[in-house]
């Protein structure tokens, strides 16, 4: 009997504790951070580094879940429909949040989120195989005019695809784009001599021995300072870089967003995060809430515009 009462009391305590999280000090329970891509991948690595620091700063458990599929749309849809109570958050890249909604009828849009902060970014480069005859962008144009240039990357609508399409448009040539499952399959085709060019991150050189020709950004990067911008080579610059942000579903209370934003500031600038990112060869880029919200809105509009001009969105 005694034990039954104890159990009952414990049960009552537990249920009341669970039903009234709003009155307690945030955060007082486990936070779920959703990453819409597979573990160990390009989004997951910075996401997990970031979550690790946030866990320490917020003083609560953080569980990272990978909800994969459809370019991150499955995970983003789940998150957009979650309770905006500050316990369901997401670490999502540019594509999932700003290109997918233009290309297909996603159940979320630009106003489904409370952007909290920008965490990381990665510029992309025009890249060719090490032993390729193409030594410069001029050579690339020449080959496209003389015969054909076979390019490769992830499925249409992905950033590498948009990047090479924008490049073709700017150069006034056509590329023959062959979709692949991901960068690993692309590298296989490039090293096998079936593909001439791709648009990818800085690590393509070190990992696969590919050779970058130019950066798709308005300035040179710290990681590859010898690679020129397109403007330096006498063409128009193209900005095509991936970024990763920290998001809450729309409707999350302002004070929770503030708490998270402050924690994010600390996490991104922490010793642990920067050294981890450094070791993994990834770039940190921080923007506080207001700046990030503005940036997000402009990216959403700009990418929509770009996809429409390339005929990839209506």
């Amino acid at each position, binding site marked *: 009997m005694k034990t039954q009462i104890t159990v009952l009391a414990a049960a009552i305590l537990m249920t009341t504790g669970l039903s009234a999280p709003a009155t307690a000090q945030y955060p007082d329970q486990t936070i779920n951070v959703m990453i819409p891509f597979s573990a160990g991948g390009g989004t997951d690595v910075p996401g*997990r580094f970031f979550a690790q620091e946030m866990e320490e700063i917020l003083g609560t458990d953080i569980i990272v879940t990978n909800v994969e599929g459809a370019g991150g749309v499955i995970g983003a849809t789940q998150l957009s429909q979650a309770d905006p109570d500050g316990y369901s958050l997401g670490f999502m890249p540019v594509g999932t949040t700003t290109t997918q909604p233009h290309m297909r009828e996603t159940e979320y849009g630009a106003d489904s989120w409370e952007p909290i902060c920008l965490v990381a970014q990665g510029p992309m480069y025009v890249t060719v195989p090490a032993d390729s005859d193409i030594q410069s962008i001029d050579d690339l144009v020449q080959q496209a005019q003389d015969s054909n240039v076979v390019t490769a990357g992830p499925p249409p609508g992905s950033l590498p695809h948009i990047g090479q399409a924008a490049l073709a448009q700017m150069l006034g040539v056509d590329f023959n784009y062959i979709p692949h499952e991901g960068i690993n*399959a692309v*590298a*296989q085709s490039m*090293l096998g001599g079936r593909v001439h060019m791709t648009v990818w991150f800085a690590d393509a050189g070190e*990992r696969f021995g590919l050779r970058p020709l130019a950066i798709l950004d308005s300035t040179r990067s710290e990681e590859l300072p010898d690679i020129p911008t397109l403007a330096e080579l006498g063409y128009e610059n193209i900005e095509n870089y991936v970024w990763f942000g920290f998001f809450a579903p729309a409707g999350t209370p302002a004070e929770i967003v503030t708490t998270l934003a402050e924690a994010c500031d600390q996490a991104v600038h922490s010793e642990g995060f920067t050294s*981890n990112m450094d070791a993994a060869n990834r770039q940190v880029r921080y923007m506080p809430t207001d700046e990030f919200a503005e940036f997000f809105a402009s990216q959403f509009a700009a990418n929509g515009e770009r996809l429409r001009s390339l005929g990839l969105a209506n």
Partner: protein
Amino acid sequence: MENLAAAVSQLASFEVLLAILIGTTFGTIVGALPGMGTVLALVVALPFTYSMSSIAAITLLLCIYASSVYGGSISAILINTPGTPQSAATVLDGYPMAQRGEANLALGWCTAASTFGGLFSLVILIIAAPQLARFSLRFGPAETFALILFALTCIAWVSRGSMLKGLLAGVIGLFLAMIGTDNMTGMPRFDYDIGVLSGGLALISLLIGLFALSEVFMRAAKYVPEKRESKVANVGFRLAPWREWRIRIKALVQSSLIGTLIGILPGTGATAATFVSYAEVRRTSRRSENFGKGEPDGIIASEASNNAVTGGALVPTLALGIPGDGGTAVMLGALLIHGIIPGVQLLNNSPEVLTGIFIVLAIANVLMFVVGALGAQVFTRVLRMPEPLLMGMVLVMSLVGAYTVRGNPLDVMVAVIAGVAGVFMRFLGVPMAPIVIGMALGLNFEESLRQGLMFSGGDFLSFFQQPIALVLFIITAVIIAWPIVKAFRARKK
């Protein structure tokens, strides 16, 4: 020799030895749980590696990688549910053997074959990784298409009874693979505007439904409480006598070779390897009529090849930085986190890391045998559990397993629907393995075809101009034509 000394001194630490022990045990157990395959086991361990030294981290992940592939076959044999898709072919002969009351023997075959396959591929990895990696680059879409076409002939081998029903099931499997986002256009297909469907169906939830849940449903329908099992299930672990092994050495080598070679080809995967191996061993085995009824050759074909894939898949991963399958992709991500960049530079600059990896893999494969042999004493006892209890446990584990695949409730529904469909298929005599084969290979089959056509500007004849592809096409044609020719000849006489 210097490398060896350097590598051994790196490995001789308490942290590394602990990583080997934990990795192998954890990998085997997680592999055995339905739904929680190699990739998930690696993912669970990933965050722990951040705070470990890089050599211990690699050790842990390598051990999990090698042993989880083996673990998947334990549940395949004992409860008719492959723990990982790579073990789907093990079900075909492993489960009938366990039902005969020879689970201990089945586990013996499977454990020894797994260890043999793993070590075999490791030897090849050590001898010829750079050369084989360069060869693998020649595998373009045409070659992949031809290889998968060959693997699909396996549908014919596993369609006992009615060939027509088997082919139909295979086509259903191919179709199921098409649901979800089309990688060639980036657009969702057959999603009927149901959001979650745009991510496609997970093969493992289909496996869980078809094999495990349908079994539970059938047994629940047929259950008679008073009836005692007439056969006493043998528990534990038993190796077959040497004379049994001697006549199967050819099958062992054959399937290890197939597993290693397919493992080397990026993007083809262990599941394809097991079915190619099953098809080939069955074709050449003297005991081919016993396949599907609990023939050790069938277990060997599946198990030696899927463990041989581990060494094979590491060839392009370490030599080129291109992962050979899903498991190596996660490991590659982990290596990058630790600042180790696999590829040409690793081979040239830090050979001691590579030597270390080889040693760890060798230990993992041997330890896997020990863990399997000891664990079998415990695992096999589930067969002596009262049937309702066992079936209840399978039911719960299956549903949880289906959910953990991607954290998607859809996968649980798919598993249940597949379970009901599986019951109907059993009544109608439709074989289930072809659905799995179709679905496992479908997307690769389609994408390699479309990609190949895009490269050649729509000219299918170009597929026949690639020498490797041509050879594979001819073998496939011979395999399909041979039974027809044989039947024709027999009728003439």
